[in-house]
């Protein structure tokens, strides 16, 4: 380039994520100001007129507030006239720092894909930006849900760090259940319902894992649906038929005198956890899985997504499901230590494991993260259930859940575990459909995030569709950016978002969307038995109430 503004982006470490951060910075700077002529170098040697990308420690920046680099995101940026640094507490924070700097230049990613990026044009040589911030919450992200294809997931994952989200979860070993709904176009009256080969889903899953790692995001995997995989019973979709060998059934929970698939699905079926060979087989399978995928950051090891089907054999009844669960968690922890694997294990306080164990204790709590699914969409408080935790009785689960009860249960778990924990929220599962304008919905999210601190949770895993940008990406953007910085002003954020999304006529767009939201009463249009109101056996309950996927299988 003749007469261009030459500048260097220097990276202090040669890793895929930091290289990607540098390439993103180079690409967007060129889009904003095409006279900027940028080159990327990997070097420890200082040069003039450079932007340096590195960890806080590599840049000799203060990081006393950094407790756990895997969790804590800190950005430290100081750039004057295309010269300075972008530091992060981890590699994803460097990438997020790049986007934060670009936002200071007026860039905005209002929704996923190239068509969602607003990039202003102009001379950037005189621009200055100084910023330091530690994320208010260490868990900010999404779990796969709904009907989603590879391209949808790819675009959303690339978008997450642009709105300061730091994690993505691929539930199940291969998320066939969710992706299959898209590729078969199950709800579509016009498109073909033919499936694609299963091997394609496996390839997509690997590509997505790679993409999550490339962005430096926390990679969360598994959850429900893998419990029976070690016994050769693979959950793929609801309503699938299984021919289970008698030998395999010996691993299933004994319920009402029978060992069989609960609700005809391994997704809903618990195990006979008192049998050592059963526990061993599960732990062997999980540890082998992590040997194959040592890059996984958080392995969610959960029991079945159902209720009232724990084992009633004479050995199992000697301990509670939570005690057996903790025993298995300890076994897995020990095995991973032998393997030298530092993957964190996420355990779930869910259905019977809401109750704390009586005897068993986690040997190394630092290995673990707690989660629970009690999102209600009705705001947060620190209120506990009057009367405390109800009495537990095997296979007699009939409590009416809610945040207040979940907090009471968490209090019960505290002597066993008082480490990091995050909540599963279902705002984007169905709640967003109750407000087609998204304006009331977005404000509710901002309101709730501002009161999340009352609960003691360390963030939110948003369990919902990845396709929630109709008509705007305002609510999901707010989820990420408000969890990063709870002090953001809601109305100012909304105005700026809509200006960047719609351009000159944004005020008209805002008035229109406000009118749409006001016309559709979000409370009147919410489901009475919304999944968000349930905190137990959600999938099982939903499928029993509505037929779930099954209604589409007759096609």
């Amino acid at each position: 380039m003749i007469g261009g503004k030459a500048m260097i982006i220097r990276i202090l470490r040669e890793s895929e994520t930091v290289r990607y951060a540098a390439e993103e910075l180079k690409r967007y700077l060129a889009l904003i100001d095409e006279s900027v002529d940028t080159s990327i170098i990997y070097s420890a040697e200082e040069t003039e007129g450079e932007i340096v990308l590195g960890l806080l420690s590599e840049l000799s920046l203060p990081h006393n507030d950094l407790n756990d680099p895997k969790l804590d995101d800190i950005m430290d940026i100081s750039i004057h006239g295309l010269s300075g640094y972008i530091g992060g507490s981890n590699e994803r924070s460097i990438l997020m720092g790049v986007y934060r700097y670009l936002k200071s230049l007026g860039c905005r990613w209002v929704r996923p894909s190239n068509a969602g990026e607003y990039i202003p044009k102009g001379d950037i040589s005189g621009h200055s930006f100084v910023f330091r911030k530690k994320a208010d919450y260490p868990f900010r992200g999404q779990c796969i849900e709904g009907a989603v294809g590879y391209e949808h997931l790819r675009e959303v994952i690339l978008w997450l760090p642009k709105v300061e989200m730091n994690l993505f979860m691929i539930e199940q070993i291969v998320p066939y259940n969710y992706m299959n709904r898209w590729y078969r176009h199950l709800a579509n009256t016009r498109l073909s319902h033919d499936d694609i080969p299963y091997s394609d889903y496996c390839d997509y899953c690997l590509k997505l894992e790679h993409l999550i790692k490339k962005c430096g995001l926390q990679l969360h995997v598994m959850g429900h649906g893998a419990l029976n995989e070690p016994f050769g019973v693979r959950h793929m979709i609801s309503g699938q038929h299984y021919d289970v060998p008698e030998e395999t059934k010996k691993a299933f929970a004994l319920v009402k005198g029978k060992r069989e698939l609960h609700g005809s699905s391994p997704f809903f079926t618990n195990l006979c956890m008192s049998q050592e060979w059963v526990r061993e087989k599960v732990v062997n399978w999980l540890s082998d899985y992590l040997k194959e995928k040592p890059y996984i950051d958080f392995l969610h090891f959960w029991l079945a997504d159902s209720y009232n089907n724990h084992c009633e054999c004479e050995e199992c009844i000697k301990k509670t499901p939570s005690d057996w669960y903790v025993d298995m968690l300890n076994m897995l922890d020990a095995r991973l230590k032998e393997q030298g694997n530092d993957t964190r294990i996420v355990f779930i306080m869910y259905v019977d494991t809401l109750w704390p164990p009586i005897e068993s204790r986690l040997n190394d709590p630092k290995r673990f993260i707690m989660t629970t699914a009690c999102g209600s969409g009705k705001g947060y408080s620190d209120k506990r259930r009057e009367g405390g935790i109800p009495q537990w009785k095997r296979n007699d689960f009939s409590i009416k859940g809610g945040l207040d009860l979940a907090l009471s249960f968490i209090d019960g778990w505290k002597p066993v575990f008082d480490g990091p924990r995050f909540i599963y929220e279902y705002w984007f599962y169905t709640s967003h459909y109750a407000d087609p304008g998204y304006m009331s919905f977005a404000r509710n999210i901002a309101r709730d995030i501002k009161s999340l601190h009352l609960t003691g949770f360390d963030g939110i895993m948003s369990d919902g569709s990845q396709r929630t940008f109709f008509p705007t990406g305002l609510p999901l953007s707010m989820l990420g950016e408000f969890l990063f910085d709870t002090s953001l002003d809601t109305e100012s954020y909304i105005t700026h978002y809509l200006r960047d999304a719609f351009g000159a006529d944004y005020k008209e767009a805002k008035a229109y969307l406000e009118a749409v939201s006001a016309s559709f009463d979000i409370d009147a249009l919410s489901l009475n038995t919304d999944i968000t109101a349930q905190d137990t056996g959600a999938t099982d309950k939903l499928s029993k109430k509505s037929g779930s996927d099954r209604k589409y299988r007759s096609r």
Partner: protein
Amino acid sequence: VIGNTAVGDIIAKVPEAVDRFAPIIERNLALEDKCHRESWSILKYHGEYCKGLSEIYYALSRNDIDNANLALERLTDYLSLCELDISLYFDLFLFVQRTKQLIAGL
């Protein structure tokens, strides 16, 4: 919303509001900036969606389940036709599942 005539009366006015806003959408569909252009393009599809929702919810507000189901079928067919244009933004599967639950009074 089922049997809630007050809610239904307000929702019934949505198609009018969508039509009133249509010229503003039209004048923004050829913007130079691709992000802004796409935002308005989404609003165009979204307007038809709101009209379809208005029919469903109005029928529900009058306890007219049959017409609510028919309106859902029509809206599903419209969204099916344009799904490939809006697939990054809208999950038709969850929408249909959830709306059927709403109509069923769940």
